[in-house]
């Protein structure tokens, strides 16, 4: 009885003292509505509104047009092939790394993850230098002049190299998380390594495999750089949006294409979300073991090593080629060693490098701080509308970068808010794209903290803001820094999200590389790509070192 009386008073008290922090809630909600919901809504309204009147004419024309239909099916076909092949490669790679006794695992892991910190157009560039019309392998070694790279095959190859590592990371964690005793039980019951994999591990990882397929599907959908450079006679949606806007300046058609690209992407995203919620049952419980026994069979080890080595070789070749392209006069024509491209990358393109670095750092901080606040409101308060806030803020995960970028360009080029040509539009575009990851790291970090910590702080008289700043932030700092590094990487390497919002005042590396390649400045493009990779590597590996031991351990 006494409790029932005391509770409402206590709750009031808590809200009363936390009002300072609560003021931020409407600010956050406004930010998310303005910079996530509004640009996308604006873009879609351009698709179905012409001269202020609603119409389905543009959409209807597009759907009826055989070429557009072909583009749509192309996109799906490319996505499906990349998703399935990528999942197979990623799963085999993750299996070799977690279950087979092979040497140099640290190196294979590092190499496999290199593409995750590189701009995807770097893959297109490397492939062109190796296998293009004047490619090192095709022209110099095989003596053929072929355009076979341009089109479907080249796109599959480029997207596989660019995106299989993300699927590999997913599968790696799932393989590591499988309860080891299940596989051990299977082997004591008479299953050999292959039977264990087939009847137990893969069965348990089914939701994860499906998740990987959907993940790769959405990456393939969103990719712009590779289709622009390698698409050839195989146009896909993202490159068609670019052509519509930049080439034809047909905004309604571009907007319609964006709408058609978004629908399947969002569907896949939610299917993926459903599936990942279901993988939970397959992972280690408190009583399980995660020490997995490694396969020692000679043949299996040799096969795993050969496979892992081959995949790594393909990746290494890309980077070696970029390095070669950056240090020779004109790769494919004149192989004289020169330092001029590297010098150019550090002089002519210095602005792009510095701008990219600065804007990416600022926006990584913005996305992580906003992400933490949203995570706090979602996980730790009962405020109305918080699940909607969470939903909208997470949409950029589902919506392809091209769509967000185009939405920004259209929404903020005129009243009520004009941001075109400013640094703000780039920072906000970066931040919005990284916001879901900011929220994710925030939620994960907050979930690890027991609720009693902030209750204890509150009983000692702290306000909501003081609790957040003095108790929660220090404890979640490692996760936040990891989130910042991730967000930074994502911003530096994206092309699709920024290609429509760059301006002469603020240039960024990925659009610069794209235009260098359009001009045929292969050397400069390669040199600048190399600088980007070095910059990201320094941040990814340098930040943990600067921050010391406890941060690395916390990861």
């Amino acid at each position, binding site marked *: 009885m006494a409790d029932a009386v005391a509770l409402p008073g206590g709750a009031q008290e808590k809200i009363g003292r936390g009002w300072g922090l609560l003021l931020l809630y409407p600010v956050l909600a406004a930010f998310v509505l303005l910079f996530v919901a509004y640009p996308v809504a604006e873009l879609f309204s351009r698709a179905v509104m012409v001269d202020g009147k609603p119409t389905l004419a543009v959409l209807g024309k597009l759907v009826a047009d055989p070429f557009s239909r072909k583009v749509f099916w192309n996109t799906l076909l490319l996505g499906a092939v990349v998703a399935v092949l990528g999942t197979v490669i990623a799963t085999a790679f993750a299996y070799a790394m977690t279950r087979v006794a092979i040497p140099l695992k640290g190196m294979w892991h590092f190499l496999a993850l290199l593409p995750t910190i590189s701009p995807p157009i770097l893959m297109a560039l490397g492939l062109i230098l190796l296998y293009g019309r004047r490619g090192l392998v095709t022209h110099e070694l095989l003596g053929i002049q072929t355009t076979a790279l341009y089109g479907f095959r080249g796109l599959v190859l480029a997207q596989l190299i660019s995106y299989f590592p993300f699927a590999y990371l997913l599968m790696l964690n799932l393989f590591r998380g499988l309860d080891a005793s299940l596989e051990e039980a299977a082997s*004591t*019951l*008479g299953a*050999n390594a292959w*039977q264990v994999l087939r009847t137990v591990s893969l069965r348990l990882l089914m939701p994860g495999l499906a998740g990987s397929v959907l993940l790769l599907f959405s990456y393939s959908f969103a990719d712009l750089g590779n289709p622009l450079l390698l698409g050839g006679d195989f146009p896909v949606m993202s490159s068609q949006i670019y052509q519509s806007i930049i080439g034809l300046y047909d905004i309604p058609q571009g907007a319609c294409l964006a709408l058609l690209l978004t629908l399947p992407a969002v569907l896949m995203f939610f299917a993926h979300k459903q599936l990942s919620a279901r993988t939970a049952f397959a992972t280690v419980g408190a009583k399980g073991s995660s020490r997995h026994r490694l396969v020692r069979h000679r043949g299996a080890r040799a096969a795993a090593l050969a496979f892992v080595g081959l995949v790594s070789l393909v990746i290494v070749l890309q980077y070696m080629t970029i390095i070669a392209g950056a240090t020779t006069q004109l790769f494919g024509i004149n192989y004289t060693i020169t330092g001029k491209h590297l010098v150019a990358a550090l002089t002519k393109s210095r602005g792009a490098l510095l701008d990219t670095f600065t804007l990416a750092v600022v926006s990584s901080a913005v996305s992580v701080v906003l992400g933490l606040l949203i995570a706090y409101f979602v996980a730790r308060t009962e405020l109305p509308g918080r699940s909607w806030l969470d939903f909208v803020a997470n949409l950029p995960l589902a919506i392809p970068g091209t769509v967000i970028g185009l939405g920004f360009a259209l929404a903020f080029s005129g009243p009520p808010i004009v941001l075109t040509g400013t640094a703000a539009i780039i920072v906000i575009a970066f931040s919005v794209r990284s916001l879901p990851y900011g929220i994710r790291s925030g939620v994960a970090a907050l979930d690890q903290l027991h609720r009693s910590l902030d209750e204890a702080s509150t009983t000692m008289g702290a306000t909501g803001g003081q609790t957040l700043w003095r108790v929660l932030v220090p404890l979640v700092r490692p996760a936040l820094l990891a989130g910042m590094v991730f967000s930074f990487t994502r911003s530096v390497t994206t092309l699709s999200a920024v290609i429509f919002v760059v301006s002469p005042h603020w240039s960024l590396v990925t659009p610069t590389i794209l235009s260098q390649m359009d001009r045929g400045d292969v050397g400069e493009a390669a040199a600048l790509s190399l600088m980007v990779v070095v910059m990201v590597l320094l941040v990814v590996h340098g930040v943990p070192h600067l921050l010391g031991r406890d941060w690395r351990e916390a990861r």
Partner: protein
Amino acid sequence: MTTAHTTPAKELRISRLDKSYAMSRGRSVPAVRDFNLTLAPGEFVTLLGPSGCGKTSVLRTLAGLEDFEAGEILLDGRSIARLPAHQRRIGLVFQNYALFPHMSVFENVAYSLRLRREPDRQVRADVAHALEAVGLSEFGPRLPGQLSGGQQQRVAVARALVMKPDLLLFDEPLSNLDAKLRVQVRAELRRLQKSLGTTALYVTHDQDEAMSLSDRIAVMRAGRVEQVDAPEAIYARPATLFVAGFVGKVNALPGRIVARGADAVTVETLGHRLEQPAVPGAPGPDVLVLARPEALQLVEPGPGMPTGTVEMIEYLGDRTEYRVRVGSTQVTVIETALARHRRIAEGEPVGLAFVARAIHLLPPEAGTPS
């Protein structure tokens, strides 16, 4: 109970087993050192020891789930040491049961038979037998997640039994059950193993479990076997103070053999002389006198007996524990509820009487940590 599963029981001989775990920077920590143990066909032996003593490592090495540096493992004289786990025909019941969550109870139990490509009719019959043996005939279509902990445990046993293993291994299979169920299931396990006659090795840190289940107990400490013997012998005649302490409370008192007869010795402890049957190779003259708390009785203080002061009394329902200070040593005495004839208070002087022939003598070095 069915006997259809019985195969001729096999003898297990483990000799000079050495196993260590690799740590970072090339260092390694020994887990099992010079381990020797032989199980007679059909015998139920328990490895008993504190956590980290290497008992689970021995079990996993037998199952083929761990590599080891040296030693030999023979089943009926045939070495299995180099065979991969899936060719050993050794059934292992895991601590967490390790049931496949994506397969029904039936499919879990049928797993090994399906791998051997047994005909479908045979599979059905064998699985039905195994599920019947553990009392779960009705549960075939269920998923493991729909079963209670005790039922999951029995499915795990059925899954191990159905493959007619040469050897059954149990890795603390009862530790995830609540106390009441544990007592019930352990009786069932014992009955099942006896009826099948399969040689079995069981790992636990619970001495009650070890005592009630085993033909013999091997007490392990720091990777070695400290003593292998029948449960009664382990309790009454422990080889070391560690063994004595691991299977129950014990008073270890310094003593001295003052006289040796043909079939008895006289030992002096706590200033008191006791007659004790002579054991071959009896130590002396300095000895460690092991007296279980129930081997001592509290009596009216009088001449010719050790006397002391009651320092603490712990009432535990079915029994009462007394800490009595005798000179510089503290001894523990347990009195069952019915044996208590008089209320004793803390601080009161008491006399101690030894129950005849209930003590055990060890050389003093058996009490030092190895």
